């Protein structure tokens, strides 16, 4: 569970997140939406304790400001938008790095850590890739390796920054299905910044629409995704298609 109270972040003199409050329930998947520069990534980084913020961020009952880096990373796993990929590290070695919050500062991983990494690798169907260098993987395989590393962290909260931005249509769906499966099985609380409104609406339980660092709409896709709101916020021309309880946002060229 994540509780944000009056959270503000100022970067380089600009207020990127301004007095934002929101709650993410245990086991819930909340998608952060909004145009470029709305503060999605910065909010994720604030929750992960990677930027200075004002206000209060409480994750699993403890304030982020009170924890050491190690304690925070035991509660939160973050998948950045563009992870650094050391080309020659093997999948096994990369996923094992996800165990860092559980390994003593100067120690090396124990059998428990190897077992946890092995579970994460199995969970993401990467068993036959353990010895492969990251540089030899395709985009979709790489994305699964990154998710496996985050899963190996065994943190109850998973933060995803644009998890599908580098993937094709099919891989996007597969990746999001996978996240959905994982969060139901583990169970995990998921907060993801997303660009694709239709996909976000189908996978997340709740959408948090941000503009200029503030929440402008909060609720299920059917409520949040309206033609007027999206057109205005994104400066885009869209049609909203509703079908079997799902909402699809279709970009249209101005006539």
């Amino acid at each position, binding site marked *: 569970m994540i509780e944000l109270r009056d959270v503000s972040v100022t970067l380089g003199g600009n207020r990127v997140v301004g007095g934002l409050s929101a709650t993410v329930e245990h086991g819930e998947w909340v998608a952060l939406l909004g145009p470029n520069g709305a503060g999605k990534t910065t909010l994720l*980084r604030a929750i*992960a304790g*990677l930027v200075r913020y004002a206000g209060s961020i409480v994750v699993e009952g403890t304030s982020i400001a009170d924890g*050491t*880096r*190690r*304690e*925070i*990373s*035991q509660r*939160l*796993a*973050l998948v*950045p938008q563009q*992870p*650094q990929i*050391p*080309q*020659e*590290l*093997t999948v*096994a*070695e990369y*996923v*094992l*790095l*996800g165990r*860092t*919050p559980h*390994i003593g*500062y*100067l*120690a*090396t*991983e124990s*059998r428990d850590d*190897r*077992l946890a*990494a*092995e579970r994460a*690798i199995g969970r993401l169907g990467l*068993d*036959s890739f*353990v*010895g*492969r*260098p990251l*540089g*030899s993987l395709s985009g979709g395989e790489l994305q699964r390796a990154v998710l496996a590393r985050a899963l190996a*962290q065994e943190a109850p909260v998973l933060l995803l920054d644009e998890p599908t931005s580098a993937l094709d249509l099919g891989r996007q769906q597969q990746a999001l299905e996978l996240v959905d499966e994982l969060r139901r099985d583990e169970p995990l609380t998921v907060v993801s910044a997303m660009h694709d409104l239709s996909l976000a609406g189908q996978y997340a339980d709740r959408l948090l629409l941000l503009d200029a660092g503030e929440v402008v709409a909060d609720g299920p896709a059917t409520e949040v995704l309206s033609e007027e709101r999206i057109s205005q916020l994104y400066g885009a021309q869209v049609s909203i298609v509703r079908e079997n309880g799902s909402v699809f946002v279709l970009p249209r060229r101005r006539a």
Partner: protein
Amino acid sequence: MTSTAERLKAAPGETVRARGLPTGWGAAALIVLAGSLLLGLSVGPVSTGVWAIASSAAAHLPFLHVHSRLDATDSAIVWQLRAPRVMLAMLVGGMLAIAGSAYQGAFRNPLVDPYLLGTAAGAGLGATLAIAYAHASGGLLPVAAFAGASVAVIAAYALGRSAGGIRGTGTLVLAGVTVTAFMTAVQTFVQQQHASTLQQVYSFILGGFGSATWHDVLIAAPYILVSSVVLILHRRVLDVLSLGDEEAASLGIDVRRTRLIIVVAATIGTAAAVSVSGLIGFVGIIVPHSVRLLVSTSYRAIVPLALVLGGAFLVLADILARTVMSPAELPIGVVTAFFGAPFFAVVLRTTRRLG
């Protein structure tokens, strides 16, 4: 790669492993080091057989009761002249190589060497001041060089911190360049004012082990040992840092503190090495990169292997330095670059990696 059948047989927790330090490479590196040490002890104007030296070394060990096959003169040559020289070359070579690997990991930049933060310029200035104003030689020289190196690094770090904030290792590198430029300028000025010292200053800066004594070994060894142990303990953390500051932080590493510890450890060891041997270039770049190309890009292999092979490399380079033009000596920096550069070119060309 393991097949599915093999994987099913493997016990849980056995399929997912970091390669770490391959045993074969570790053993090979130690054998190369031992071989180069024996060679270093036996090569010289007075020829002494490798076995005679081995028996003499064994005779020094307690409980073994081996009879030394060296006579008293030969024994003195080997243990009072050659041994400190070989030991010092091993310690300095190992230190420069392990510090180079640590700097490259901490700054995520393959081109940085242990002199990055002004260690070399500071040591050079310290030595020059000591020679020019205190007419120092022998005992005081290493102390002055060590002090100069420490001042340079503290200045570079303070400047980098105050200008760069938390992130941006680039600022720290620029601070090192700034401090180096300033200290080199001061050194050149002092040198010009005291032209008579040029020869002595120049010979310190060229570096070498020609005058090595057990005293030098004892001065440098404690710093080098502590520094090496600290760096070896950080080998896994260096792999985490290879994911970048932000991801390393999200995995629970306090990046700023960790980088400070690594840089301080590497710098103290380097300063100690420089103060007893002068400036020896190229070792801190060539040895870690050879390991990277030949063995693994994981710091779990690079850090310990750089220590052992860096020691062996400089012992061998020193053998060449004192034999190629015997009885004259080549500056060791000339040897490390003259033989090291072609060797590295061959490694670079013959290893085919990804991409």
